[in-house]
């Protein structure tokens, strides 16, 4: 049954206003395999999946999609679900204030005489939740759970719909290593039980470890498909196909010039925004020196983002205690505005809801933080504004038709560069970057690392929160390890290993 294709995609071409997102793409997925899809940001991976799943309805693109050997003409996602397709998007699509089981059956509840038997649904959700390894009570409201668990709810939901082909778009993007590993293991198990999976991921190691076949996309074209059983594929091969060139180093070279302590935090404690007695960060102390990149590692929920956001003008938590010193003087940041004016910059991990203003153009998104600087008597100098935005577009190599383009039309990596531009334009002395390379491709990652190194070389201090340990080891000079709201320890670059960090976090 080697030629039993569950999904065949032929010659797909899809245009967006001004951009050709997909150009004559073909690939096919065999029944019962895990099919990895790799490609840089903007290579067309997500668009391709939207075409396959009916988000882009039949007729809005050229080419054919065949499911189970039959021509599929999906008018909406509902049509694709009917034939056993399910897609789990990068941004989870759960209703935050509903419980696990309500989310699971939302949209395909079969009521009896119009009345829903909730008890029955709770019971039915049980086996699926157990299958995916989620042991929280089904009544738990999903917004109270971490992203990793929410992901599991999505998978359980897909399973409960008799899904035969599950498409996962960057499933591990917001998961830590443990969670990622568990998820990949789950996918492999489900494959062995007969489920077919399409796995879109930037993390090539993951794809290589689980995928049976791998298709690489580049600039909207399908470059080639590898079969991991019959040929040996290495990360370097994939990277070469993705970027169209060989990439020798994943991390740029650097020679740090580290000076005195610039920023120091002592005994910082942050309380939960809703449960006012609950400590989210407990007595954290750390410092950053001039020209240094300091990494913050630890599992999800370790309190890293919460610590930094609370420092950045009390943007998180009901209250906080502790002292912060800038150049040896005690300092407080009463608001993000105050923090920015005192030299802090913060790049959020959640670029769509906390970073960007999606309905505005690239230019406004870059300049929003620095308008007072670009204006006189409260009137914006549009020429200086355009120049500033244009300068950063070129400096950071943001791929956009023009700075008047709406940011929502940009790919993830380019969106990230827009947010970075905004922070840089405000000229921070201490730049906090929270998962700066989440959900962006190898090429863009390398560019972001280069920018961070450059800033450090210019004498800025960088605090980098990251869940990717190789990244922390690759570019941080020192690494603080956090877990359960506490700083567990600190490692120098030369003594840091992935195992060492995990050990420290879990002890």
């Amino acid at each position, binding site marked *: 049954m080697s030629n039993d294709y569950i999904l065949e995609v032929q010659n797909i071409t899809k245009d967006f206003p001004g951009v050709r997102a997909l150009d004559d793409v073909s690939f096919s997925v065999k029944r019962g395999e895990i099919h990895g899809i790799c490609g840089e940001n903007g290579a067309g991976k997500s668009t391709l999946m939207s075409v396959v799943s009916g988000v882009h309805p039949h007729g809005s693109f050229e080419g054919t999609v065949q499911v189970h050997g039959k021509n599929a003409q999906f008018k909406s996602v509902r049509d694709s679900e009917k034939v056993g397709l399910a897609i789990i998007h990068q941004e989870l699509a759960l209703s935050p204030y509903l419980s696990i089981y309500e989310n699971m059956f939302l949209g395909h509840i079969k009521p009896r005489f119009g009345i829903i038997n909730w008890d029955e649904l709770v019971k039915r959700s049980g086996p699926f939740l157990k299958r995916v390894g989620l042991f929280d009570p089904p009544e738990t409201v999903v917004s109270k759970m971490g992203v990793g668990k929410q992901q599991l709810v999505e998978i359980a939901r897909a399973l409960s719909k008799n899904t035969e082909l599950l498409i996962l778009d960057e499933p591990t993007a917001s998961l830590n290593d443990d969670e990622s590993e568990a998820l990949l293991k789950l996918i492999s198990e489900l494959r062995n039980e007969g489920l077919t999976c399409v796995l879109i991921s930037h993390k090539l190691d993951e794809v290589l470890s689980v995928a049976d076949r791998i298709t690489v996309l580049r600039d909207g074209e399908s470059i080639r498909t590898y079969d991991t059983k019959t040929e040996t594929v290495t990360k370097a091969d994939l990277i070469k196909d993705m970027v169209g060139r060989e990439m020798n180093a994943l991390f740029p070279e650097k020679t740090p010039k580290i000076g005195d302590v610039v920023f120091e935090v002592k005994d910082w404690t942050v309380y939960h925004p809703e449960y006012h007695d609950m400590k989210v960060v407990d007595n954290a102390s750390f410092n950053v020196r001039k020209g240094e990149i300091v990494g913050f590692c630890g599992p999800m929920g370790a309190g890293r983002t919460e610590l930094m956001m609370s420092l950045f003008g009390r*943007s998180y938590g009901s209250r906080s205690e502790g002292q912060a010193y800038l150049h040896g003087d005690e300092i407080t940041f009463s*608001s993000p505005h105050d*923090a920015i004016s005192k030299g802090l910059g913060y790049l959020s991990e959640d670029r769509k809801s*906390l970073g960007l203003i999606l309905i*505005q153009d690239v230019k*406004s998104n870059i300049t*929003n933080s620095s308008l007072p600087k670009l204006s006189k008597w409260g009137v914006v100098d549009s*020429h200086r504004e*355009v120049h500033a935005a244009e300068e950063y577009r070129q400096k950071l190599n943001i791929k956009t*038709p023009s700075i008047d383009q709406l940011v929502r039309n940009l790919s993830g990596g380019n969106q990230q560069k827009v947010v970075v531009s905004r922070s840089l334009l405000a000229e921070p002395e201490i730049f906090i970057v929270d998962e700066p390379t989440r959900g962006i491709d190898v090429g863009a990652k390398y560019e972001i690392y280069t920018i961070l190194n450059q800033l450090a070389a210019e004498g800025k201090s960088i605090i980098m929160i990251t869940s990717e340990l190789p990244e922390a080891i690759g570019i941080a000079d020192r690494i603080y390890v956090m877990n359960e709201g506490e700083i567990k320890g600190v490692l120098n670059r030369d003594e840091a290993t992935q195992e060492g960090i995990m050990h420290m976090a879990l002890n």
Partner: protein
Amino acid sequence: MSDSTLTEHTMSFGQFLKKNVRSYSMFIMLALIFIVFAVLTGGINFSPRNISNLFMQNSYVLILASGMVLVIIIGNIDLSVGSVCAFTGAIAAMIYNTGLGLVPTVILTMMVGAVIGSWQGFWIAFMRVPSFIVTLSGMLLFRGLTYVITNVTPISLRDEGFRQITSGFVSVKALTIGGTHYLSWLVGIIIAILFVFSAHVTRRNRIKKGFSIEPMLAFLLRNAFVVALIAVLSWKFAEFRGLPIVGIVLGIVVSILTFVTNRTVFGRYVYAVGGNARSAKLSGINAELVEFFVFVVIGSLAGLAGLVFAGYMNSALPQAGNLFELDAIASVFIGGASMSGGIGTVIGAIIGGLVMGVINNGMSLMNIGADWQYVVKALVLLLAVFYDIYTRRKAGLA
């Protein structure tokens, strides 16, 4: 020079039109409605008297709409403006009746409006009570206070001076020959020259700096349209009694607000907060303060509108301002603002207000009663907003 800007330079007129059709459709709609009523009324709605009347009858709603658009851009709503108009109208009459001149009355009334705006803005921005609730409460509060200070009886004005703000005209004797008030031609010509000149300078600067520009044909058409509009208004005003004072007041309000929204840091913050409040805050924008000031602005404009309405009625009525808030809100949405915030323009709100005004006015001229006017207005609101959402979805902006 990068490739991308080059492509913008060479964008053809057709492409440009296609890309910008949404921004022009409001103007086209207004013109069409006007022409339809011109046919139906045998051209009466195009008479000099009616054109002047159109501005007077709608001035207060237009003033409110141009402030309401800011409130809606930041994703809020103000239901209280009608009641605030009644309250400030009464205050204005009281101040004027003490013998203070018209100008001090205007300033003081707008200050009272600003205080009212600060009250509501305080609860909305700093105490985080939803604007719907705060202004619903304001709607009741200021209606009640109006009844208290007026004893539920109209306040008449001590002389004819007050009503000049709404029904007065500016005309210079030396420039009035044979019943034609050439002053309005003169003002019209000056404004037209200034407009064309500044448009030209902006365009030249953009070319010099290598920024993208609209095609020449579009530039010419746009300027020709504005000049023609100014010419028609000047002509109509000249043939009637001269420049309506309320038109000047409205012109000042619209110019200032357009400038503020397009060119100032505050205006840009308004759009940023409306587009994504949380992101705006993390970008260092004091979203609360922006919200607060937007309510101060709408408050003081409600003060001005209350005063203008009192001038229009030539007395301050306790029931004044009934349903003004809905007219203002409808104008803003007809003018292309988005319910979810971040999108909308002052000019759009004015066009939206005029669409409703022209329909009202035309139907009145046809002797169609208020009952049917409501029905037609309701459908126009619904269809206009539907059209906006529909075109936005097609353009991939939804």
